[in-house]
C-alpha cells in the first residue's frame, strides 16, 4: 500500500501510522453534551466505501494528514494536511 503525503509525495505505507476516522478533528465544545462527545470519541460512520481518515507520517515529515480512501477497494483518492482542515 502506498500513501501520498502532501509534503513528501507517494510513500510506502510502512512510514505511516493510522489513527482513525477524521471525525477526530471535529472536537466538540466541553459543554456540548454526552451525545456529542460519545459521537466524537466512540461512534463511527464506518462506511464501506469512501472515507476520510487520519494518518501520521511518522517515519517521514511528521505531518498528520487526512486521506480520502475507499475502504472496500483501498483506492486512495487524495490527501490533505490536517493542519489545513481546522486552520
Amino acid at each position, binding site marked *: 500500500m502506498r500513501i501520498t503525503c502532501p509534503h513528501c509525495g507517494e510513500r510506502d505505507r*510502512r512510514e505511516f501510522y*493510522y489513527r482513525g476516522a477524521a471525525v477526530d478533528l471535529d472536537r466538540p465544545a466541553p459543554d456540548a453534551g454526552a451525545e456529542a462527545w460519545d459521537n466524537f470519541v466512540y461512534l463511527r460512520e*464506518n462506511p*464501506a466505501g469512501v472515507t476520510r481518515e487520519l494518518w501520521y507520517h511518522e517515519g517521514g515529515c511528521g505531518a498528520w494528514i487526512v486521506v480520502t480512501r475507499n475502504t472496500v477497494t483501498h483506492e486512495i483518492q487524495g490527501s490533505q494536511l490536517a493542519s489545513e482542515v481546522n486552520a
Partner: protein
Amino acid sequence: MRFSGFRVLKEGLTGNKGWTPHWRDPEPKSEYDIVIIGGGGHGLSTAYYLAKEHGLTNIAVLEKGYIGGGNIGRNTTIVRANYFLQGNSEFYSHSLKLWEGLEEDLNYNVMHSQRGIINLFHSDGQRDAAARRGNMMISQGDDAILLGRDELREMLPYLNYDDLRFPLYGGLYHPRGGTARHDAVAWGYARGADQRGVDLIQNCEVTGIDIENGVVRGVQTSRGAIRAKKVAMVVAGRSGQVAAMAGMRLPIESHVLQAFVTEGLKPCIDHVVTFGMGHFYISQSDKGGLVFGGDLDFYASYAARGNLPTVESVMEAGMALMPMIGKARVLRSWGGIMDMTPDGSPIIDKTGVEGLYLNCGWNYGGFKAVPGSGNVFAHLIATGRYHENATGLRLDRFRTGRGIIDEEGKGSQHNLH
C-alpha cells in the same frame, strides 16, 4: 439423521448412498416470531439455542451469502477463556463450558481440541500482568498455570531460548484452551437449528429494517418482506451497515485481520502459542498446516484482504520466536473483517428500538465466543433479561463510562485493541 461411527460404517458398506442434506433450503415465510440477520457462527448458534433452550422455533436466519461464510470461515480457530476483566471473564468462561459439551450436544464433530494455550511473557512486568490474568481465570473457575522459563522450555523446546530479542521469562498456560474446526462449528449449529425447525435462508440479503413507532416490525430482503416480532442483528463485519438500517451509529470501526496457513507438515507444534511482544500466535491444524496470524493491518477496511507490511511483521515474529518454522511455506493468506470496538470487547444488548437486538463488536475474538454468544443472546431475546454471564457487554458503556472492558488498556482508538 444421527451421525456416529456406526453410521459411517453402514453407509460405507452400502455405497454412501444414504446421506441426506445437513439442512433444508426452505423458501422464506412471510412472517416469523424471530428473524436473525446473519448466518455466521453467532447467528446460527443464537438460532440453535433459541430453539433448544427456549423452545422457540418459528425463526428464520437470513444470510446474504452462504451460511458460515463470514469470520467463522476465516479465522485461526482458537478457543480459550483467558480474559482478566469482569464482563469478559465470566462470559468466555461460560462459552468454553459450552464448547466442552458441543460435540455431544450437536451430534457433530467440531474437532474441539483442548491442546492448551501458552501466552509467553518477556519481563517481570509482563509476568505480573500474566499473573493478574491467571488469578482471574482461576477465580472464575477456569484453569491457569504460571510457567517459569525451565518449565516452558520443557513444553516448547523449539522456541528461541538463546538470543530472542525479548528473552523468554515464562508463559501463562491455559490447558483447557485449544482449537476447533471452524467450518464444522457453523455446520453443526446450522444442522442443529435446522433439525429443530429453524429456517436457514441463504442468498437472502436484508435491505431494510421496518420500524414503526419505535417498535420493530420486520425486515425487507432481496427475497421480499418478512414480518417479525423480534429482529436480531448478528452481522459482525457488517454491523455498521445493518445497524444504519435501524438508524443507529455504532462504536465500531471495521479492520482487516490477516491470517496464514502453511503447507501440510508432520506434527511439530502441539499447542497454541502466543507471542505478545511480536503480535504472533500459532497452532498446527490436524491436517498439518501451521495456522498463524498477528496484528491488524491497522487501517479501516472491508476488503477482507491485507497488505505486505503486516504479512512481514507476522513472519518476522515467527522467525524471531521459533526459527524452526522458517522452512515451512505459506500456502494461503486471507483476511477477515473485524468489528473493532473502542475497548476491544463485544456488545450483546437490546437497542433503542423495541424488539431489535444487537450482537456485534467481536474484534478478533469472535470464534471462541460462538457458543457463548448465541447462548446468552438467545437468553436475552427470549426473556428480555441479560444472561447472568453477559451483564457487562452493554452498548451504553461508552457513553456512561460505566463498565468499559479494556483488556489492552489502549482506550478509544478502535484499531489498538
